[in-house]
């Protein structure tokens, strides 16, 4: 009986030690630590905020039209508002397609463009290498934006045009479409996307 009590006591002691050890690993406050020290701390913070806003001209919002093309092949057909400014005489031959950066912005922007596939509802498609755009952030006249400096519309990801356009600035666009001789008749449409990113940032997809 005495031996049994000793074994029982030993087992109880082992159990107590293991339970205390296990519990103490879950409750750090039970761990014995050295002398307590006190520090005083003050939070410090600052928030940097950016804001950008852009708008499109009414003609760009209305869409980019190439009208009805009746003679093929057609090369570099102008979008209908490429040179059609009739707002006043001073704007004659200027483009009516533009993106403006609001003065209620606090960082310059880079402007990016991409487009969906240019096709008919029946599946006929004009390759985007035939769809060109050009932009200029400083000059809008008969010469600029120019066809020679134009880009093909891209589908996979945005392509960057003018960079570092400041708040209050305007970026002007022109668009051209070429149609190969063998292109099937039909109404071809897509969506062209314009995006402003903070200057220096990638355009993304």
């Amino acid at each position, binding site marked *: 009986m005495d031996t049994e009590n000793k074994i029982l006591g030993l087992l109880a002691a082992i159990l107590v030690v293991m339970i205390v050890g296990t519990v103490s690993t879950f409750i750090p406050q039970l761990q014995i630590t050295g002398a307590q020290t006190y520090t005083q701390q003050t939070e410090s913070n600052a928030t940097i905020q950016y804001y950008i806003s852009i708008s499109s001209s009414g003609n760009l919002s209305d869409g980019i039209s190439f009208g009805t093309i009746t003679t093929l092949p057609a090369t570099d057909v102008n979008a209908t508002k490429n040179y059609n400014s009739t707002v006043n005489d001073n704007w004659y031959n200027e483009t009516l397609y533009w993106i403006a950066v609001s003065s209620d912005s606090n960082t310059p922007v880079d402007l990016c463009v991409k487009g969906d596939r240019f096709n008919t509802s029946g599946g006929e498609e004009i390759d985007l290498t035939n769809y060109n755009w050009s932009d200029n952030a400083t000059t809008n006249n008969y010469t600029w934006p120019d066809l020679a400096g134009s880009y093909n519309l891209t589908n996979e990801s945005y392509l960057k045009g003018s960079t570092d356009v400041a708040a209050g600035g305007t970026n002007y666009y022109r668009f051209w479409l070429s149609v190969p001789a063998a292109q099937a008749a039909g109404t071809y449409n897509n969506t062209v996307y314009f995006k402003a990113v903070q200057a220096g940032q990638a355009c*993304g997809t």
Partner: protein
Amino acid sequence: MGIMKLAAIVLLCLLVVPQGVLAAKGVGIVWSTQTEAVAENARHCVTYGIYNPWDEDVTAMLSVSSALRPVVVGEESIPTFLPAETMHEDAKQINLCFYVPKVYTDDCLVGNFLFCEQTCSEPEVRYDGEVIVMEAPSGSGGAMGSSTSMGVSAPLTLRVVCNKYPRDYTPLVVGVIVVIGAGGYYYFRKRKK
């Protein structure tokens, strides 16, 4: 003479006023963070402001780029009406939430759930993308042409924080305690009999 002067002033104003002010409809985004540290298996929200300082009302949608799409929670593309002349100070606040799943693999001795440790030896997982405010596509482009859509984006990187922890032997300790307890109990019951 007075009329001539007035006409000259009006003409001068037309020449000087930037053409951009004639544009009327637009969208804007306000952001205060570009990099967020997020935990695994946790929901994390970021607030963006959207605004329209232009002189026409617009309906805008907040969306994320493809890299962030797998972790965004819920439907982010809820059209939001922005009245004209909503300046950035009065931007509408939109909470964009992300749920980042468990991305770092634990090192476990049994299966993938017992006696595990996390050494954080894997490269940091990041989701690099952007948050975009888009105006809904408008215009048809006519007989042959394009509708247009415009937007503004803010960069966003989600850095998934890895929490180091040592191998967890708790199940083993608990098991030993249970075995010893049960063994002792049965031993003494047997001895008493």
